[in-house]
């Protein structure tokens, strides 16, 4: 099973879709998870996930706002989607009955 940060990264990349690349994923993680994400943690995790065939990367186009430098684009593979779904389902399943999950459920209702 994937780790927590791996799940966060896969989810951020999935949310960004075709616009998923280093800086965008980092901003998405910092915004949604409310935690700092270093470039080192980001790229080493991307490499690990790519080695596990959970995502694929390639060099994208260069833009002026990046000083004419190319982006490292990221896309989830079907394996990556399955791994993220399995992680999510496991978290939901193990959280059933936990006080914070019950409170959250009541808030939603």
């Amino acid at each position: 099973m994937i780790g927590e940060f791996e799940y966060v990264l896969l989810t951020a990349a999935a949310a960004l879709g075709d616009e998923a690349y280093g800086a965008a994923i980092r901003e998405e993680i910092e915004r949604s998870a409310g935690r700092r994400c270093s470039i080192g943690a980001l790229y080493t995790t991307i490499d690990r996930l790519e080695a596990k065939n959970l995502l694929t990367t390639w060099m994208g186009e260069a833009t002026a706002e990046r000083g004419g430098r190319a982006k490292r684009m990221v896309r989830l593979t079907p394996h990556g989607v399955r791994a993220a779904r399995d992680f999510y389902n496991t978290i939901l399943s193990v959280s059933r009955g936990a006080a914070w999950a019950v409170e959250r459920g009541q808030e939603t209702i």
Partner: protein
Amino acid sequence: MSLSRTMLHAIARLLTPYEREAVLGDLEELHSNNWRGIAEIVDLYVRRRIVLWKSWRPWVASFGLAVPLSLTLMGLSVSIAKAGQQWINGNILHGSNLALGPGLALLLSNIILLTAWSFTGAFVMGTISRRTVRISVALSFVPCAFCLARFRIESLSRFCLLLFMIPAAWGLMYGLRFARIRLRSALFFAALITALTIPAWSTKGAWIPNWALSWPAWYLVATSLRKAPSLEEHHPWQIS
């Protein structure tokens, strides 16, 4: 260009061209401070280096090959230099006949073994973990520096300790360049080494250093039978 920006670009050279492009672009896009950018790049580089050491390969290359091989081959280098000096003094300087006695046969056998052990050991060191090869080479110099400082044989130059470095450098260069050796060549080295170490099998305690030095040759035989890794497995953004 400011000092911090120059430093940022200099530090970014630690990364591969593809990764440098992506990381510098990200820092530019996020309007990151240059000093923070330097810290981020160093962090990425250190993480990449640490990741390499999670595998068994750099450990074997460094502590299973570099250190023990340099330690044992230094001893053999001195022994060969001493035997060679005695043979030259006895047969050329003070004698007239160049007899092929058991002393010369042993000397030749040891020279071949030193060459084959150094070549195969360094070849495997270069192939087993090429990304950490600089550390392996640096570690192989540690016993050399220690012994060079304590060398006390008057008649020999202390550089005799480093005789093994010549075939080792040759083997390392080949290992880094070709990654694999042909089965025929690997079998030749393994058979040669094993045949030349047979006389030492009866010597108590000699089999440990012999096998410590001989396993790379048999490792080369085993790996030469395997399928070559596909070029598609190479990731251009990982450190070289």
